């Protein structure tokens, strides 16, 4: 177990290093000289050169890369060209907002998704199953901003129950969390159903029943744990998507999260902010993947002990 986890952590570090290199190189080839963009059009070459020197852009590329990595390690991602604020601070502020939104919608999506999927599997072929699956299809295919607007109209404008924008009170997060989580709830429900139906057919489920275990106990103890393996894969990707911010939902509800930051950095050609955002997104996915792999190991002893290790 420990060796499995430490191996995965080392792999993760290597992947992150690779991503930092790719990010760095990609942004080198983005058209447009950032310094020229920063300064006035009429800035004289001497000023441009001075600024380039100040930003370290006149150094050889490998040196620039090392400086960049060094900065990342020290949580120093430079300052925004546009607002002049430190990139790390802006990212961190946006992250806190996105984290709240993501955790709420994640909770909403897994609780609703897993329970609907299990109920559908247990009532396979019955009307409850078909209605839940129809709902899940609608959830998966309806655009999240559309759901957002519908929710705003019903709960905000018509019923006047919940705020339709902002992010300072906890209840302001309710509508955006539902709007963001619906799609994920739908896909989690579908995979839970498929995975449960697959597991219920397995021989060990029959063995458990033959021992005299209650049907409900068999589902909860024997089936669900096995069925979790494919569910976790999906849930991991979705958590990654949520933590990297939803540009649309943040726009519709005026939430200043990572999604908004990403849009801003692109439209302003704010290179340090863009680099920082890309690194953040990469980090989230890599870390979530690591967590997914570690949870596999907790659930499945075949992974924990390495496959086919019959001793």
């Amino acid at each position: 177990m420990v060796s499995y986890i430490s191996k995965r952590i080392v792999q993760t570090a290597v992947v992150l290093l690779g991503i930092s290199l790719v990010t760095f190189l990609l942004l080198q080839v983005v058209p447009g000289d950032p310094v020229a963009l920063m300064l006035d059009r009429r800035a004289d070459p001497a000023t441009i050169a001075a600024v380039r020197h100040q930003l370290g852009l006149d150094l050889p590329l490998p040196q620039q890369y090392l400086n960049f990595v060094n900065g990342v390690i020290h949580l120093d991602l430079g300052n925004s060209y546009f607002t002049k604020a430190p990139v790390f601070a802006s990212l961190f502020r946006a992250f806190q907002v996105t984290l709240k939104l993501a955790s709420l919608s994640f909770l909403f999506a897994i609780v609703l998704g897993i329970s609907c999927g299990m109920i559908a599997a247990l009532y396979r072929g019955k009307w409850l199953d078909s209605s839940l699956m129809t709902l899940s299809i609608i959830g998966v295919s309806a655009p999240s901003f559309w759901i957002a607007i519908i929710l705003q109209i019903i709960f905000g404008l018509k019923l006047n129950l919940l705020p339709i924008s902002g992010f300072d009170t906890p209840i302001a997060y309710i509508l955006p969390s539902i709007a963001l989580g619906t799609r994920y709830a739908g896909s989690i429900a579908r995979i839970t159903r498929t995975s449960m139906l697959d597991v219920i057919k397995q021989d060990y489920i029959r063995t458990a029943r033959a021992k005299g275990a209650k049907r409900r106990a068999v589902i909860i103890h024997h089936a669900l744990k096995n069925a979790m393996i494919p569910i976790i894969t999906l849930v991991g990707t979705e958590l990654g998507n949520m933590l990297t911010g939803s540009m649309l939902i943040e726009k519709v509800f005026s939430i200043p999260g990572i999604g908004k930051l990403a849009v801003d950095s692109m439209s302003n050609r704010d290179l340090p902010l863009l680099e920082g955002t890309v690194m953040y997104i990469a980090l989230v996915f890599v870390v979530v993947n690591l967590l997914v792999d570690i949870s596999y190991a907790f659930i499945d002893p075949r992974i924990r002990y390495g496959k086919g290790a019959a001793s």
Partner: protein
Amino acid sequence: MKNEALLEVKNLRTYFHTEAGLVKSVDGVSFRVEKGKTLGIVGESGCGKSITSLSIMQLVETPPGKIEGGEILFEGENLLNKTEDEMREIRGKKIAMIFQEPMTSLNPVYTIGKQITEALLLHEKISKHEAKARALEMLKLVRIPLPEKRFNEYPHQLSGGMRQRVMIAMSLSCNPQLLICDEPTTALDVTIQAQILELINELKEKTGSSVIMITHDLGVISEVADDVMVMYAGKVVEQASTDEIFENPLHPYTVGLMNCIPKLNSDVDTLPTIKGMVPSFDNMPKGCAFCPRCSMAKKICEQKAPELVDVDGRKVRCFRYTKEWKEEA
């Protein structure tokens, strides 16, 4: 004089309602299992052996399957009249079952120990600690080396033969009166197969429980069974004691199965097989189900389905032992 019956199945019918039509997997099967005796059930793949045993446990998947009729008398009580809660008390406690696939019959995410103690904790009023002691005792009984270590291991860490031993330990942990073994050795290689059969036999002697041994291999039957029931396409085609069957098989299908047993010291490279295939349920012949593959078939076999008839105290479903056969000449 007959011994006391532990289990008596009368005219059991279990059908599957599939999209392709009605599948009569078990179609009017009757048999009895005496106390302390072993009944062997033989037949080719798909003849209804597993569904017969799952019907006794009432673990047939419903839908598509359904027990349509008959009686399953266990200690004189009809199991078909029991509620699900009453059946749960019987499953694992009074009737236990071992399945064909040791590789997939144990839950991959729980330890061997947890899976054995689960049965004990369900049926006996004992503490976790006592259950563990009992489970370790069972692991020793089925001769698993290093039981303390195995107790905390997962199924994937054990070989197929070891897993089947675990299955046996698990099923015998509550001292069931009846043990149903559904092809317990089919997935194992020959030497392991012999060991497992020997173990089942030995434990049966020790505990005095009855056994239903399901197999498609008459060789297995000859080693363990007191009585034999031969099934074909959901029906019983022959019933007799093991000695009688091996001495003098009556049904042409039984004769065919006998010829398929490999004999030591024989020079032939290939084993004889019964030619043709089991008819599928949507394509069942009007007459005897075995008729298309039978070398002795006469006209009557194509026209009418034979009944199970008594021949010198044995039962066989074949026209050769009826008046009609002699009349047709």
